[in-house]
């Protein structure tokens, strides 16, 4: 009975979880691609994983379009509608960053210098952890009215940690003897890498507000 009357709401719920699952796949392929890139540079495997990341990123866009279409056809009350649309718009920046990073590496043929590899690995590990926590936080916010804040504080700590790694990497870069052009190229890439945890933190703050709004 409930499914009959609130079919759109149920469809929407399925789409949102589909979107989050897809985000997980994008993350997974991005992390694998970066690990391969750090190990063996731009190889066929890297290109394959990059294409896979792009495929999942495009699918994320498609799902978001479907969510928006449902929203405009009266699924959910306006406040939830507005919140969910804004949330997905912010989350969507993350797969976009994944794609942008891999594109930069491939088109600009970037190879990481030895002294940066450990930091890049650490930055990716913490950023991916933030993204996973963010997805978990969204799930908690949807399912319960409490428990969101704890996850937010971990994501916030991760973001500070990533900022610290980012600064350290940029310092190392400019202290090195690398060609100035390479320094600028790598600096730009490091900034985009650092943007992942920043965006996860921004999403997390938004989720926190949504959780507060769920209580009256």
């Amino acid at each position, binding site marked *: 009975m409930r499914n009959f009357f609130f079919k759109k709401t149920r469809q929407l719920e399925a789409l949102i979880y589909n979107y989050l699952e897809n985000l997980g796949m994008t993350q997974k392929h991005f992390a694998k691609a970066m690990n391969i890139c750090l190990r063996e540079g731009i190889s066929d495997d890297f290109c394959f994983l990059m294409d896979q990341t792009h495929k999942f990123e495009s699918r994320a866009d498609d799902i978001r379009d479907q969510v928006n279409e449902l929203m405009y056809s009266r699924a959910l*009350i306006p406040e939830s509608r507005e919140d969910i649309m804004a949330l997905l718009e912010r989350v969507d920046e993350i797969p976009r960053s994944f794609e942008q990073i891999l594109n930069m590496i491939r088109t600009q043929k970037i190879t990481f210098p030895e002294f940066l590899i450990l930091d890049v690995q650490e930055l990716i590990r913490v950023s991916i952890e933030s993204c996973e926590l963010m997805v978990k936080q969204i799930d908690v916010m949807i399912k*319960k*009215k409490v428990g969101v804040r704890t996850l937010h504080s971990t994501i916030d700590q991760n973001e500070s940690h990533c900022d610290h790694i980012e600064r350290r990497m940029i310092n190392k870069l400019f202290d090195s003897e690398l060609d100035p052009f390479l320094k600028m190229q790598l600096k730009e890439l490091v900034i985009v890498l650092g943007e992942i945890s920043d965006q996860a933190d921004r999403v997390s703050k938004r989720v926190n507000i949504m959780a507060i*709004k769920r*209580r*009256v």
Partner: protein
Amino acid sequence: MLSLLGGIFLGWSLGANDAANAFGPAVTSRMLKFWYAAVVAAVFVLLGALAEGQAPIETLKSITSLSLKQAIVSSVAAAATVTLMTLLGFPVSTSQAVVGAILGIGFMNRQLDVSAMSKVIICWFGTPIGGMLIAVVLLKALGRLYNRLNTDLFQSDILLRVLLIAAGSYAAYALGANNVANVTAVFVGAGQLNIFWAKLVGGLSIAFGIITFSRPVMETVGKKLVRLDPFSALIVVLAEAITVHAYTLVGVPVSTSQALIGAVLGVGLVKGINTVSTKTMAGILLAWFLTPTIACFISISLYFVINLRYVPSG
């Protein structure tokens, strides 16, 4: 039948204006299509009028005794006041306009039941205050209950939508039960209609107003209310419905708009937010005094005009 036209017009404008207080939030937020809301509101208004419309009709009838001509005068005076105040942009109360008009006729007749009159005026004071108090209690009690519910975001959404539709239907029922007296009580007093027909004609004319002309008002009022979060909007509609229904049981027709504004203020009080602007408040207070006064003045003037006699000088 022709003599009832003034009352039917008043009922039509009442339906067009006041259905917004019940279903405005649900329609503006696109939870319900206008046509569904209008049909549900019309059905519940008619149900309310038929089931519980008698007590307010008895009260209004008892303020003064009217002839058919006087009943028509008071209906026209009330309708003219409502139209004038709407054109001036004031939040108008049809109940106050009707009572003001009856009061005018009562003055001219020198037949006024002071105790019935004072009961009505006391209830006017009580309407916004009642709405406010009920909203405060509901917000605290239902808020606590809602926070304890172990529902996910989508279940909460479904729950709020269902409750808002149920509260809107209840508000429409209370509107019909309470305000049908404004439309046809004078004709019962004048012996033109019996109670059943008064309830039926009144209920149908309000329902007709809802179906034909409530859309613009519903969308305007709804937008103002939707600025509140959905739960607060639900509390406001529910508090308004309970307030109006309570006065129906007492037998006094009151303003649904004033009950609604009181409820909005109550929500603002609990949440510590400014829900109604000073300008809106000033408009409401001014209308509160102006509506019965203007209606009284118009009905006295009309009464005077229709009783003019040509007396040849020679």
